[in-house]
């Protein structure tokens, strides 16, 4: 009993996210309610969605988030530890077992930038990782960098430098801001 007209996985994803028009939504529902193959495919979409929700809720990803994201997380009762840093500035930071999200608010003048990279460096300024072409709001005065809370809770005391770079083709990178985080471990763990 295989489906002769299987629903596309992207259509099922849009359905699960509530992104379809009412008529299209009804067509999808009428189809999968009568179809073993497509209901199994929808279950796969639902499982992926649930996995992403759990992953994001654990805040173990290193990524850029929006102010709205943080507002909603706070509304859900999440505890957000946030460190605002000015360009050229440094901040003493730590993380506790009760913290759910760890955010560096990197102040920068983003006007005119078409592409921005976030370079993560060691204390000597040597690049360890780069988040290329990060999402940012050009009208905003900062970038919200989420550091993995899992990593931060296990990290030993030490310093880390973050750089926001405006990148343009055939032009050298322009530093929008350099930010130093001096982390002091307050939780037990390996040295």
């Amino acid at each position: 009993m295989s489906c002769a007209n299987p629903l596309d996985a992207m259509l099922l994803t849009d359905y699960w996210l509530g992104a379809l028009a009412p008529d299209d939504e009804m067509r999808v529902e009428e189809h999968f309610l009568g179809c073993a193959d497509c209901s199994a495919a929808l279950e796969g979409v639902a499982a992926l969605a649930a996995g992403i929700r759990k992953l994001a809720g654990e805040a173990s990803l290193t990524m850029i988030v929006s102010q709205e994201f943080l507002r909603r997380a706070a509304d859900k009762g999440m505890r957000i530890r946030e460190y605002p840093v000015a360009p050229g500035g440094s901040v003493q930071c730590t993380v506790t077992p009760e913290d759910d999200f760890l955010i560096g608010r990197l102040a920068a003048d983003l006007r005119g930038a078409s592409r921005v990279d976030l370079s993560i460096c060691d204390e000597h300024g040597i690049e360890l990782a780069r988040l290329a072409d990060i999402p940012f709001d050009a009208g905003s005065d900062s970038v919200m960098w989420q550091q993995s809370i899992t990593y931060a809770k296990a990290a030993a005391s030490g310093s880390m430098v973050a750089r926001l770079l405006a990148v343009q083709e055939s032009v050298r990178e322009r530093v929008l801001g350099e930010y130093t985080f001096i982390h002091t471990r307050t939780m037990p763990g390996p040295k």
Partner: protein
Amino acid sequence: MEILNDADLVSRIASKGDIQAEAELCRRMGHRIRLYGLKHLRNTEAADDLMQQVLLTMIEALRAGKLRDPEKLASFVLGTCRMTVLDTRRNAQRREKLLGEFGLQSLRPVALTMPDLDEQRLAGCVQSLKERERTVVILTFYDEQSGADVGRFLGVTEANVRVIRHRAVRQLRGCMGAVA
């Protein structure tokens, strides 16, 4: 039991009162109705309640021979699902009001849980996405932000958000071993 399609099962229930056919149809439809419930109610307990209610209504109608065209089972079930969800929401609104009045936070339902996934692999797959794709995926699935809201943050149109989301989900499915 030989492998019958849904319409064959409906006919057997209506004409012969076949208990085995009822059990098989409930097994198949229960799974699908639960998915419908999870999508619309975002709560496993409410989805289970919906499934039970709709299956009862379905079997009652089939036994009474009320479904004249067995091929219309999916339409009938969808209509029943919609009505039951509407009732559930009305009751939920009333319950929310009472919870607010009496402050009984402990009675609130637990969050949605789904079948297990290889979480470590998924974390690697999500982290391997491009920055904008990862942000779109997280804001959409975790935060349930609309395409318009995500687009405002990224400075792109809602249609572009949809394109980025599709590309990201296709990559994630491939990374997780599903056929894209």
